[in-house]
């Protein structure tokens, strides 16, 4: 076995030193009958070539977004990630290091986390950010629970703009951990009046920008109304590239900004692992979940970094911790921070503009197809089309034409006939002129084909 250094001779000598006859005898505390004498019923060990072949065979059965025109979004976006990102995150000193609890031997990790926290705070316009969460959905529910702690209230108001999975995660946590969730109907045309749901029992209002349906949201009136009754505004974003072009939540009165950071630095990877961003106003610092890297000095007076304020966390606070999170998303946060460092201010802004321009031109094109209606007046790089037919079979028909033409809303929200014909279409910088033409054709043909 290529990963196991011990030889049989080593094992014999080591057992002699320990003073036991066999490895099995080290398992003497296992109840009789529960110790297996033979290997379980699974294949035997395999060489690198065989394993690569087996997994490669499974990979080959998939239609990768990189091999066909692809317009998929709904919370996960295909962007070009510079080659240096993947090279750098695979350095063993990053890849095979643990959580930086020993700061003297993990200054590398700690410094990039400090830089990551700064970047996230800058992007969102917030005072402070943590060192990452699992993903956007879990970051959002953690924000809701933080708002419950801060306000000592137990009712979250959820906008119809929020990603359905995020909503479902909040509802799951609410049902089982004891807070109320007042969710507005899904809002594909950005018409909701969420203000009327906010009252003195509301801990927070959760709203997504750009919305799940693509619309851009003005937080001004909402922030005012929420703050008037002491509730927090949680601004969710599932497309982090939009921060380059759209007004930041911290500049529009929001209290907490959470986001899915996958778009920057991380591949689609069939849904994970991704990286949750979490930022807020400084006054909530000690109620924040997750790890924090902080600046300090060493005994020689040199600047350095440590994990700090860890008394909030489970390994010290146990049942009184702000969150039960232990492992987070370190390596995905590294990919995020490297990609964003490569982009810089100028690169990010231009990339965001290119995304917007590409999507805007695509929307013009698709809206001209007979029977297809564009539901958005505003959007960043994703918009909603109302089709004359149910979206799920149309998307399947397009896939047969080797075009991944969008995400049907009904895939994420079941049992809502009024959403059945809605299709989310995203266009990033990876979309070419030819891709757009292919989508236009595939959509026309598929609409004709589907009954």
């Amino acid at each position, binding site marked *: 076995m290529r990963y196991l250094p011990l030889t049989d001779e080593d094992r014999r000598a080591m057992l002699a030193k320990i003073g036991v006859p066999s490895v099995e005898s080290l398992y003497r505390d296992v109840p009789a009958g529960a110790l297996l004498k033979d290997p379980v019923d699974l294949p035997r060990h395999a060489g690198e070539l065989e394993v690569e072949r087996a997994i490669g065979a499974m990979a080959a059965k998939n239609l990768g977004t990189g091999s066909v025109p692809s317009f998929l979004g709904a919370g996960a976006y295909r962007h070009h990630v510079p080659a240096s990102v993947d090279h750098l995150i695979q350095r063993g000193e990053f890849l095979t290091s643990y959580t930086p609890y020993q700061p003297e031997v993990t200054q590398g990790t700690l410094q990039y986390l400090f830089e990551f926290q700064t970047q996230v705070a800058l992007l969102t316009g917030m005072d402070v950010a943590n060192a990452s969460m699992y993903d956007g959905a879990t970051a959002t529910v953690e924000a809701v629970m933080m708002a419950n702690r801060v306000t000592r209230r137990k009712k979250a108001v959820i906008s119809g703009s929020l990603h359905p999975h995020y909503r479902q995660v909040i509802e799951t946590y609410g049902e089982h951990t004891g807070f109320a969730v007042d969710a507005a109907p899904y809002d594909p045309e950005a018409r909701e009046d969420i203000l009327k749901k906010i009252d003195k029992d509301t801990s927070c209002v959760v709203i997504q920008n750009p919305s799940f349906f693509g619309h851009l949201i003005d937080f001004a009136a909402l922030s005012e109304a929420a703050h008037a009754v002491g509730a927090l505004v949680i601004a969710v974003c599932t497309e982090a590239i939009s921060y380059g072009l759209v007004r930041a939540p911290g500049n529009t009165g929001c209290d907490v900004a959470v986001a899915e950071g996958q778009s920057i630095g991380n591949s689609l990877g069939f849904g994970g692992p991704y990286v949750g961003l979490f930022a807020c106003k400084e006054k909530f610092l000690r109620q924040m979940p997750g790890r924090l890297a902080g600046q300090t000095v060493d005994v020689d007076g040199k600047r350095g970094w440590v994990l700090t304020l860890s008394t909030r966390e489970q390994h*010290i606070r146990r049942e009184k911790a702000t969150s039960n999170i232990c492992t987070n998303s370190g390596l995905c946060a590294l990919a995020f921070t490297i990609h964003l460092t490569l982009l810089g201010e100028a690169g990010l802004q231009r990339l965001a503009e290119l995304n917007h321009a590409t999507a805007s031109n695509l929307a013009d094109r698709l809206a001209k197809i007979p029977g297809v209606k564009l539901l958005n007046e505003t959007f960043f790089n994703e918009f909603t089309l109302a089709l004359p037919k149910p979206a799920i079979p149309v998307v399947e028909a397009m896939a047969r034409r080797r075009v991944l033409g969008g995400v049907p809303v009904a895939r994420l929200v079941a049992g809502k006939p009024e959403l059945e014909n809605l299709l989310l279409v995203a266009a990033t910088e990876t979309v070419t002129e030819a891709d757009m033409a292919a989508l236009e054709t595939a959509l026309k043909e598929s609409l004709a084909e589907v009954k």
Partner: protein
Amino acid sequence: MSAIRYSKEHEWVLVDGDTATVGISPYAQEQLGDVVFVELPEIGKKIEKGKELAVVESVKAASEVYAPIGGEVVEVNNALTDAPATVNEDALGKGWFAKIKLANKSELDGLMDEAAYKAYVASL
């Protein structure tokens, strides 16, 4: 003005009229190490003897401070928010946590005087 009294959980109480000032003992601050944060109760909070009054944090630990006597919180030492080190420097003086309006003076009877507390600490 009565003499200082201590609880087994290392809180001290000093009663003046019907108001008691509460803090943690020098022994407690020494065990805790450098105090980095103190979470104080809200003014007006009614608290029972033995229940959590405040939280004191060092780098590696967070410890509850229990109310050695019950009553209503009438004042808190906000200076600790900016200068938590005061708890280390002057635990029995400027490092006080809160003032509580006593609900039941007889609760003081169960607490130790200076000599008894010293003996108690020595036995630990």
